[in-house]
């Protein structure tokens, strides 16, 4: 059986360190490609994940702008304060799609096939989070354009702004891994959506994303000051608006790394067990 011999050779090759790193990346990209094709074929997925942040920008800019403006540090316009917050909020709410997408996948026979294929056990999850990262790139670019139309300006140089965008994308990617676990754990899209919102809403609204934390009661400030959405919003503002360098960028990155380190293995653990 020559076929068996060739296959057995490939099997032993998989044990080397290089292959152990390369295989998950290779397979994850293959699954991401598949998810991005779906995004292109079913454009409503992209349209709806774009409309929601658009509504938020307009609402916050014109409904809350007048109230929040005076509470901001002098010289900072609300649009400039708001757009980095919208970036972060978009990334966080976007991560819900990871849970919904994976939960939807779990209900199809395709998952059975994937489990029987010689592909990395992480690929279904990383392919989903990577595709959602690509979607976030698109949405953030669009939000930037909309922000510019509403008067948002970059104050700290283009490179620094791009650094801020990268930080947003990194945070969105980390949040996607949390919701990958949620999607694997609940296993159906409706429940995934219902489970995600009560977690996301306090994270996004009890943060410095839309309003300065200083207006909140003391007990809430303690939470709002230190949670990852605030840290990321703060870091992005520093990178976009300029101002005194803080440790926020590093703290935000530490949150991202910590989240992926915990939730990626947990997600794979669920994948191996879910049937």
């Amino acid at each position, binding site marked *: *059986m020559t*076929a*068996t011999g060739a*296959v*057995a050779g*490939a*099997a032993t090759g*998989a044990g080397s360190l290089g292959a152990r790193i390369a295989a998950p990346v*290779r*397979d994850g990209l*293959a*699954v991401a*490609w*598949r998810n991005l*094709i*779906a995004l292109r*074929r*079913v454009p409503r997925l992209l349209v709806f994940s774009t409309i929601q942040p658009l509504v938020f920008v307009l609402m916050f800019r014109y409904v809350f702008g007048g109230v929040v403006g005076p509470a901001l540090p002098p010289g900072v316009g609300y649009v400039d304060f708001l757009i980095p917050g919208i970036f972060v909020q978009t990334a966080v709410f976007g991560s819900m799609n990871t849970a919904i997408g994976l939960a939807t996948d779990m209900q*199809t*026979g*395709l*998952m*059975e*096939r*994937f*489990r*029987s*294929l*010689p*592909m990395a056990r992480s*690929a279904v999850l990383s392919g989903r989070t990577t595709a959602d990262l690509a979607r976030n790139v698109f949405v953030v670019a669009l939000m930037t354009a909309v922000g510019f139309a509403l008067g948002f300006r970059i104050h700290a140089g283009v490179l620094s702004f791009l650094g801020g965008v990268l930080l947003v994308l990194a945070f969105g990617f980390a949040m996607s891994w949390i919701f990958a676990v949620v999607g694997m754990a609940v296993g159906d899209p409706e429940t995934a959506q219902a489970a995600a919102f009560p977690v996301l809403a306090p994270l996004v609204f009890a943060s410095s994303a839309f309003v300065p934390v200083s207006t909140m009661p003391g007990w809430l400030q303690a939470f709002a000051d230190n949670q990852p959405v605030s840290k990321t919003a703060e870091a992005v503002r520093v990178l976009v608006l300029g101002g005194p360098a803080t440790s926020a960028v590093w703290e935000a990155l530490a949150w991202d790394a910590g989240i992926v380190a915990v939730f990626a293995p947990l997600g794979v653990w669920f994948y191996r067990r879910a*049937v």
Partner: protein
Amino acid sequence: MGQAAISVVGLSKRFGAVTALNGVDFEVPAGTVFGLLGPNGAGKTTAIRILTTILRPSGGRAVVLGHDVVREAANVRRLIGLAGQYAAVDPNLTGRENLRLIGRLTQLPRSRRRPRAAELLDRFDLTEAADRPVRTYSGGMRRRLDVAAALVPEPPVLFLDEPTTGLDPQSRTALWELIRELVRDGTTVLLTTQYLEEADRLASRIVVVNEGRIIADDTPAVLKSRLGNTVIELGMGDEARAVRASAVIADRIGEPPERDGALLRLASRDGSRLLLDVLHSLDVDRLVPHTVTVRESSLDDVFLALTGHHTRSQEPSGGPGGGPAASGPGGTPASGPPGSPS
């Protein structure tokens, strides 16, 4: 060659209180087709899912081409192809994209992916639809694509879980021919089916499972000879006539036919001889049947012979045998003689 491609010893699987497999043993010689036959819920799919590393067994051991499906799952996955009961393809991708994706995920060399996809699309008569999203495909086209996907890496061992369910007769015959071709080229095929005819046409050995246990393990010829490969059913119109006809037939052939209301059922290895004999003797007594059905013995007939009761689940109609073969009237004993109005 000659040695077992798949070997299963004491395999069991429990889901909570439910025992899906209860100590199953069998061996599949390399380069043969092996049929796993049984009604819905018998444990066929559970066995396939364990052998394809999707499920872990609760007990026992399964080995595919020398690799344990639990301890060496990664090696097993390189050697197998799976076409499941539900078309496991991505509805948003085109047929071609689906096959190329499987090519990537089975580490087919980049240069081989496109030609392999084109080759399989052609073979399964999907070239015309190749660049349309699969969600526009008919059920039969999806099933064909699903089988094609299983074949992408040219696996030496192929698992087909009810591969022809939902296929039209033409596609079914084509798939049977393809399976024979693969086996000629050395592939080992384990196939589950609810249809005796399908197992009979393809498999060199058949295991019949019921409620998680093996109740027969034999060649198709032996299995069928236990009851005869032809079943004759005579609709006598009413019970009184059926009882009289039964006595006439018993006189003629030495044993009474099985009676189900107004319906008489006989099984034989030589159907046409029996039919002539029976009709002749009934004619003499002016007991002409209202309906006469001659058909291949169905899984339900085998079950009846093996277990003394019908399969629990109603067989879906439109099986490979076509016509009434797949839905034995025994499934609905209260409904009286079938088909008399036609």
